């Protein structure tokens, strides 16, 4: 199979209905993303970036159009299959980190392994390993409130990696961080893309930073792709 169409969407649309009024969050998006690329997505607030990301990540289902990942028709999966797709193929990172406040860093990172049926001892070993890889070996038993924003996002990255996904989706991962920390996070992500061959799709408002690290930047406007800019 050609790496050209690792992630493919065709005529992808998402319409939200408020009674009589319909909001088209995404209109007829057709994309093809090769394996191992780092693709940046940008656009104004409300342009449909998060909507696209949620569809690719299998958290939501399209109103029309198809999504294929590695040849598999994701848009046709049922709820259970989507859950397994999220578990095995996708790692997600959010602007607000979305860590479980009651859990320590280690427990947060080990959390996805619970649903994969991994034994407790193995879960902890694996989580510790990955936390070390993102430079948090000294913070394993801290809760999110005891960590800085950058540290929290590194925990979230570790959690996204723990199930060894092939695709990493990051929705404004640096949106809550200062510029220095933002750069650190970007470097970690770009390194994962390079060293592990992870396909990475990243939403960001920070044009300069995005252009510096991405292979390609896609711009959305009112739910439609307006420009695709290949960088390297």
């Amino acid at each position, binding site marked *: 199979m050609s790496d050209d169409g690792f992630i493919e969407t065709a005529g992808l649309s998402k319409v939200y209905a408020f009674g009589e009024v319909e909001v088209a969050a995404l209109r007829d998006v057709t994309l093809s993303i090769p394996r191992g690329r780092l693709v940046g997505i940008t656009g104004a607030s409300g342009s449909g970036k998060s909507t696209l990301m949620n569809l690719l990540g299998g*958290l939501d289902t399209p109103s029309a159009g198809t999504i294929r990942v590695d040849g598999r028709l994701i848009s046709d999966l049922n709820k259970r299959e989507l*859950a397994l797709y*999220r578990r095995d193929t996708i790692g997600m990172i959010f602007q607000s980190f979305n860590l479980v406040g009651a859990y320590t860093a280690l427990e947060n990172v080990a959390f996805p392994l619970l649903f994969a049926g991994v034994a407790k001892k193995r879960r902890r070993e694996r989580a510790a390993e990955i936390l070390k890889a993102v430079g948090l070996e000294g913070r394993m038993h801290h809760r999110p409130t005891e960590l800085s924003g950058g540290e929290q996002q590194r925990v979230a990255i570790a959690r996204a990696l723990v199930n060894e996904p092939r695709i990493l989706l990051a929705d404004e991962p640096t949106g809550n961080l200062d510029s220095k920390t933002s750069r650190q996070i970007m470097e970690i992500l770009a390194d994962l893309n390079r060293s592990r061959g992870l396909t990475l799709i990243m939403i960001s408002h920070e044009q300069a930073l995005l252009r510096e690290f991405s292979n390609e930047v896609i711009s959305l406007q009112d739910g439609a792709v307006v420009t695709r800019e290949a960088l390297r």
Partner: protein
Amino acid sequence: MRISDYIEVAGSNLWKRKLRTILTTVGVVIGIGALVCMFAFGQGVQRNITDQFNKVDVLNNIVVSPPRQDGRRRLRDSDDPDDSARAAGPVAVADANGATRAKLDARFLEEARKIPGVETVFPELRFPAQIRVGAKERFTLVQVLSADICRSGSMPMRAGRCYDANEPNALMVSETFVHRLGIGGPQDAIGREVEVVTLSLDFGLRSLMRMAFPQEGKMGLPVARSSYRFKIVGVAERMPFGGMSDAYVQPEAADGMRKLAFTNIWDLYQEPGEGANYSSVTVKAKSPADVPAIKKELESRGYNTFTLMDQFDQMRIGFLIMDMFLLAVGMIGITVASLGIVNTMVMSILERYREIGIMKAVGATDGDVQRIFLFESGAIGLLGGMFGLALAGSVAFVINEVINAIMVRQHAPRMAYFSFPWWLCLGAILFSVLVSLLAGLYPTGRAARVDPVVALRHD
């Protein structure tokens, strides 16, 4: 997910909200405790009554009495409206073909013995007598009772023993009679010599003369008094067999006594020439299973029957109604407790709304989410069930001690008023878990359907 993980996750989540978990669980503890207590009491009452029946081995007995029509018919006019109603019942059969034949005489005893399933047949014969102990003298009815019936266990003894077939001069009395005679406790009565004075009709010449020419201080009736010597060998608990008699002698002894045999007031209306009829006869079946057939046979011959078996069946319906009532009362507590669980689960799910979104984002299926929460409500049910059982046990213990303290002072034997059969204990815990799971079904179903996109959307 693994079962051990569900348990661990549920446990740690409950532990994190200790106060709420405890309060919710206490609700279940009280609900289950009340229900189990009620049930255990119902079971205790039933067990005590059933034991009593089984101990005295009376379920095999059918008490047969002649159709009541003789006396009553003659006292009432047949235009009594009741009669038309009675004509439909089994008594009518007696009226139609049993009026002259359905008698409890020696021939009946013989024929009843031939009915399949009958073990023994013994008449119940009572006669009036004066019983004298020292200077004390009391009037009573003496019952004729064979030694083997006494020894079959039908008569719980307070002191002494049942008489033997080869000691015709042995007498047994009831505990109440000992009291009436004022000879101290049951133990003091054993071995005492008593004099039994009977009355009998005397149509001898001297008696008739006396009737014709009454003398000073002597009765004018043709009645003779005869005195017999007996020795008390046993004191029976209370008054068995309907409580009519206070003293018991053996048939062999009774045969040799001159007496006026009657117990039933209608016996006085007995037509001359009808011969000696028994007021009632007890037919003992080989096993309780034979009772219904024998009873039917006797009724078809025109006799009235009374069995404790019937009473027992009636009682079983009563038990069922009692159980239902106790259950209904107990269910109130359970209902309130399960509302508590619903409330706790709804709150817990609202609090962890975002966490549910995270679970789904990292690969939890709807089923995983629902089961995580169901294990929580199930755990509340399990804890509630176990502590509820413990609570019921402690409350039952205290109540039992209090009742016994009161009852023993009134000379009642010590008893366990509550019964906790294994199925009740196991059932209570299972029921508690089941109710909790049911209560958790709606909130956890909601948790499973949480839309992760909505849950994760940043504030």
